[in-house]
């Protein structure tokens, strides 16, 4: 029995966040009077320091530790930095919203931090066990956050739906994982790849496992036909929590898909690619068509999120063409770019919904955006940037994200898919532009002045301008994604 103490250095950020979560819990117990402010401040500081740690420990080499269950590579570091950013901005946007509704208990920030830890574990998982536990850590925190408004029946119902369906999806995922373990004899992603390379394991059993795995993944990504929870949960959850669900977890889900399918089951690419195609086409069609019929902006953004995730899957499925891996890196980096740009747009769009809400009033109808230009022309412009970018109008970041994905799809030879995606984006442009039309050409229904703390106004403005700025100069972020993936392969 020889056991070497694992190298803790690559996982320094995770360890730091875990220790800080425990410290915050203890600190808020003893300082009850200032508990909420303390928890909020410490959470933001923790995220900032974790970002510094990740930034300094990021290098081009790949490090494995904890008996190969943890992998530290550039793709992981980049995604983690984006996750800290999304969670920090999400907490900042949501804070006054929560305070107005008496929901700003210190546990909210603690759960948000533990959710971040879960996502970090998922991003850095090199083993099905650590992947699953990271996923559960993230999901359990999210379930609790959705139910955070205890007085609201709708929020409790949303949490219940999310919890039951999420548990079912976790079960499917676990079942798929156990089948793959049974067929290949390994739970480590590189071990699975090796076993598959040597043609180990029965093909039927493997495919059986992949089907269950895909069902679990599709649920977590929120793509059709496993999307039923998305609109209800987005609608029912407090908007600050909706913002959390809609942003950072998408990056974690992207990382999970990459690790499981590309790093683990790459040899089976032709099988899971056809499944992804099915999911992607359905999501893009249903997401865009159903979004038109919505009158609630949270539901509209939920359906738009479904179609965006479908778009991201388009890039993931064009990696390998008949065994030719020439385009793989390009396709996966465009998927990563898409996920990151969607998160930036998602933050701004839900941030706007929070900005228009105030104590006792939820700005969740699309009609609440009517005449925003008359109330605040600056924020109307910000919302217009977000909507234009989501619709894929040049030259905003959303356009380049869609463009890169379509390039990858065309390079893989799926012309019909690219045509379909463009047609559906045109349909999608309708409901995004409708919001812009309401803001500029209609009379306001709600004339109360917009009141929001200065920090929210500032960061929301920066967020909106970033969408425009990154749209003008997307090369930096794009090449960052590409070089992260090159280093990780």
């Amino acid at each position: 029995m020889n056991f070497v103490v694992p190298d803790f250095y690559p996982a320094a950020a995770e360890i730091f966040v875990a220790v800080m979560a425990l410290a915050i819990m203890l600190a808020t117990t003893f300082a009850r009077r200032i508990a909420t402010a303390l928890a909020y401040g410490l959470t933001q500081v923790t995220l900032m320091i974790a970002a510094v740690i990740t930034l300094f420990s990021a290098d081009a080499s790949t490090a494995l530790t904890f008996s190969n269950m943890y992998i530290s590579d550039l793709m992981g570091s980049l995604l983690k930095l984006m996750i800290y950013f999304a969670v920090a901005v999400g907490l900042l946007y949501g804070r006054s919203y929560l305070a107005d509704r008496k929901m700003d208990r210190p546990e909210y920030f603690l759960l948000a931090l533990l959710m971040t830890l879960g996502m970090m574990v998922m991003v850095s998982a090199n083993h099905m066990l650590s992947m699953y536990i990271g996923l559960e850590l993230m999901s359990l925190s999210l379930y609790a956050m959705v139910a955070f408004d205890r007085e609201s029946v709708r929020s409790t119902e949303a949490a219940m739906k999310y919890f039951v369906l999420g548990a079912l999806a976790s079960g499917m995922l676990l079942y798929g994982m156990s089948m793959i373990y049974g067929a290949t004899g390994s739970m480590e992603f590189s071990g699975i790849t090796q076993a598959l390379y040597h043609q180990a394991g029965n093909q039927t059993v493997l495919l059986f496992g992949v089907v269950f795995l895909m069902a679990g993944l599709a649920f977590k990504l929120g793509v059709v036909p496993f999307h039923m929870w998305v609109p209800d949960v987005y609608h029912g959850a407090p908007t600050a929590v909706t913002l959390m669900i809609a942003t950072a977890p998408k990056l974690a889900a992207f990382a999970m898909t990459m690790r499981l399918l590309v790093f683990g089951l790459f040899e089976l690419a032709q099988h899971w690619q056809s499944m992804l195609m099915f999911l992607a086409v359905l999501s893009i069609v249903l997401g865009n068509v159903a979004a038109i019929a919505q009158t609630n902006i949270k539901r509209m953004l939920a359906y738009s999120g479904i179609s965006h995730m479908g778009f991201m899957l388009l890039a993931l499925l064009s990696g390998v063409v008949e065994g030719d891996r020439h385009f793989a890196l390009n396709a996966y980096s465009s998927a990563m770019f898409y996920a990151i740009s969607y998160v930036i747009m998602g933050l701004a769009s839900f941030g706007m919904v929070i900005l228009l809400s105030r104590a006792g009033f939820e700005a969740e109808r699309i009609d609440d955006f009517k005449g925003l230009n008359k109330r605040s022309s600056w924020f109307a412009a910000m919302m217009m940037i977000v909507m234009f970018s989501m619709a894929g109008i040049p030259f905003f970041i959303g356009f380049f994200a869609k463009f890169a994905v379509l390039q990858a799809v065309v390079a893989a030879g799926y012309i019909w898919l690219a045509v379909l995606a463009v047609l559906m984006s045109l349909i999608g442009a309708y409901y995004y532009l409708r919001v812009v039309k309401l803001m500029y050409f209609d009379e306001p229904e709600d004339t109360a002045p917009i009141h929001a703390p200065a920090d929210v106004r500032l960061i929301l403005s920066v967020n909106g301008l970033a969408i425009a700025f990154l749209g003008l100069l997307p090369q930096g972020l794009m090449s960052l994604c590409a070089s992260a993936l090159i280093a990780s392969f």
Partner: protein
Amino acid sequence: MEFKTFVFYVMAAILVFAAVRVVTARNPVHAALFLVLSFFSASGIWLLLEAEFLAITLVLVYVGAVMVLFLFVVMMLDINIERMRQGFWSNLPVGALVGILLVVQMALVLGGRYFGVEAMPAPPAASETYSNTREIGRLLYTEYVYPFELASLVLLVAMVAAVTLTLRKRKDARHLNPAEQIAVRREDRVRLVSMPAEKDQQP
């Protein structure tokens, strides 16, 4: 038939019967007790697989702790089982069809062809001195220490979530703070008011 095989089939039959009864029993207390029975039979099967530690843990943890708690909850809550079962019979045909389809499909893949004794031969017998408990303990704290520690955080989240979602200060509760009571001074309770003396008034 070998004796072990015989024991396996008896255990498996009891397990399946008990599991079916958990779902079909009308009385929730009976359902919980059938769940206990199914746990017992499952632990018997694990013993046959030479997983002694897991078998005993299943009985100790699930039967001894979880199910007892479960029974308490079932008895404390007034569950109207009839109302919850509304629509059971009308939905049964569709549910049964889907269920049977699933079972058949899974049986095709998971049947003897791929997971039979030929495909998955029994591992070599462990030596006399091999200790199951020791091996699990060793792996848990060395190779699997990372997921093990993370699992503790998952439990922490469950705890924090349960407390924050259910704990609320009741406004109608007459809660006393002993420290405040002890620290009370005369001035807090009694106010001496000086008043002018009055004559007795005769009616």
